[in-house]
């Protein structure tokens, strides 16, 4: 990973520790700086209310985790917000734009790009072509310009360069000329995420980005997600693994049976009785922050320095950072590390 693509951010989004909520945290609480505001969005399938969200705001420049048991309505909410499904009622605004009834491709063009729980890569296109497809503003994608390479050749070079940088970051550069269908499940998740970033979105919505990913790749995926925040993007992601959520999320939204049942910083949410009842009642094996689980997590994280430094997890895991500080160097530092020093 290099700093090449990291925009010379004037604001250090990683170090911003101002409170996220305006006032007390709780289901449907207002945020200091929301990028996405959802009001009364409902979606029924037959008799069941798959989504019934009264009020929800997603904080800008933060990583928000959306958790909840299977069937809670997380994917359906993603589909509704991005125009892939139509709600029975409700409205929502993204960055000031009302989005109800807006076509999915227009939503993406506004800077709200999503990935899918069931990964969607274009199997019979190469990895590089998949990436190029993600780019915005390619005049050659218009039929009127397609025949004239002089009109789009330069932009194509820029896009290719941007794709190469991202592929390198996501460790897919060796696969650039392979068909995407030949990638492993985890690599496809990586490709889908990298492709979504080609359009330089403001809000990235990832539906279970870690699902089915080889554990060896999980750590680097987490780093990528945190880097997105460092680069000024807002992230909303669905995840089941509590350790992952605690590790990278600034804010956690809990859904159950279509409703938002709890919200707050990860550490608080995991203590919430409503969450334990709604979400974790069925998952006795999930560790809820007992010291044993925490130690395991720390051991895991210690393998990767860049993933620890400069995040808000420092509060929980910070005592390791000092020990490693001496060893931290350019090679392993990565984006997060340098931000931390700066």
């Amino acid at each position, binding site marked *: 990973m290099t700093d090449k693509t990291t925009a010379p951010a004037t604001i250090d989004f990683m170090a911003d520790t101002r409170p996220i909520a305006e006032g007390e945290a709780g289901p449907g609480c207002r945020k200091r700086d929301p990028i996405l505001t959802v009001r009364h969005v409902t979606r029924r399938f037959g008799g069941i209310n798959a989504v019934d969200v009264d009020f929800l705001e997603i904080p800008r420049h933060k990583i928000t985790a959306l958790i909840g048991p299977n069937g809670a309505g997380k994917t359906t909410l993603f589909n509704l917000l*991005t125009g*892939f499904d139509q709600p029975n009622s409700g409205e929502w605004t993204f960055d000031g734009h009302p989005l109800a009834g807006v*076509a*999915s*491709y*227009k939503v*993406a*063009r506004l800077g709200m*790009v*999503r*990935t*899918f729980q069931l990964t*969607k*890569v*274009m*199997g*019979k*296109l190469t990895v590089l*072509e*998949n990436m*190029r*497809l*993600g780019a*915005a503003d*390619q005049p*050659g*994608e*218009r*039929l009127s*310009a*397609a*025949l004239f*390479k002089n009109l*789009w050749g330069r932009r*194509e070079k820029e896009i290719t360069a941007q794709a190469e940088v991202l592929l390198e970051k996501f460790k897919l550069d060796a696969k650039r000329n392979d*068909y995407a*269908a*030949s990638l492993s499940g985890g690599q496809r998740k990586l490709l*889908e995420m990298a*492709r*979504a970033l*080609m*359009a330089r979105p403001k809000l990235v919505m990832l539906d279970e980005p870690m699902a089915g990913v080889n554990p060896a790749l999980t750590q680097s995926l987490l780093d990528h997600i945190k880097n997105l925040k460092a680069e000024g993007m807002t992230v909303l992601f669905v995840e089941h693994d509590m350790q992952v959520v605690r590790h990278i999320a600034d804010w956690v939204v809990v859904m159950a049976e279509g409703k938002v049942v709890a919200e707050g910083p990860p550490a608080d949410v995991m203590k919430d009785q409503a969450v334990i009842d709604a979400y974790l009642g069925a998952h006795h094996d999930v560790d809820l922050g007992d010291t044993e689980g925490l130690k395991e997590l720390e051991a895991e994280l210690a393998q990767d320095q860049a993933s620890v430094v400069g995040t808000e997890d420092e509060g929980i895991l910070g005592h390791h950072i000092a020990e490693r500080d001496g060893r931290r160097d350019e090679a392993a530092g990565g984006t997060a590390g340098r931000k931390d020093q700066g």
Partner: protein
Amino acid sequence: MDFLNILNGALGEIISPTTAAYGLAALGLAVHFGYTGLLNFGQAGFMAMGAYGFAISTLTFNAPFWVAVLVALVCSVVFAFLLGIPTLRLRADYLAIVTIAAAEIARYVVTTNRLTDVTGSAGGLNGFTNGFYALNPFPEGRYDLGFVALSHRDLWVRVTAWALVALCCVLVLLLMRSPWGRVLKGIREDENAVRSLGKNVYAYKMQALVIGGILGTLAGILFTLPRSSVQPANYGTELTFFLWTCLLLGGMATVLGPVLGAMIFWVVLSLTQGLLYGAIESGIITFITTTQAGQLRYIMVGIALMLLMIFRPQGVLGNKRELAFT
């Protein structure tokens, strides 16, 4: 049996304008299905738009050649919009159903007796190609190409047909290598993924439908030129399926594949016809008549297609890797 004659006949098929028309229409299907994933089972309808649009504007409205061509193309675009507007937002199979029905409707409409003055009904239309042959730059005479000797009219229609095929192949090739073509291929693979990347999938599908349809329409005009007649019976569903056969033979997501497929299709038909008829006439085969042999040819094409699907499912020019994972 005159093997040399049979072989010459087969070679003649390779450059025949009908082969060119089949190749061009199959290229349209490649744009539809091979590149965009649109299931068009009504390419015969697009060809009919070309044939009738051209013939009717020439005969009924005395339109000059180029105006007649333009009218045919406009008909084709309108036809594509009629098919596309209600179906392209739906799943792929809806387009398939609507196209097959629309092509049949078009055929029945031109066959109705009430329209005999305009469409010629079941008898079709004749004698509308003077404008085309008036453009012929070749002086009168016979032109010997070695395996066939052509009249100046035959030569002119062949040169035009293959020049048009070559031009269309180049255009399609350039389009498919452009970012626009990349979006089409993305839609073929997963249209929701393409939507999530901010592309107006509906508009791209419509553009592809129109372009592939225009290729079919040009093919429809080409098809009528050597015959100087339009017969509604020629535009039935079997024409569409012959075109699909050409496409599958040659390779779906290729530019030259459909053209090569059309050549193979007609060469196989011609060879089997020559050999079977020869064998029957010389008494080698006694258990079938020449009429039955005519049917048998298409069975042979079917067998050739089956063998191809078994041993080379990607078609002659297709990329094996593109088929390896589906």
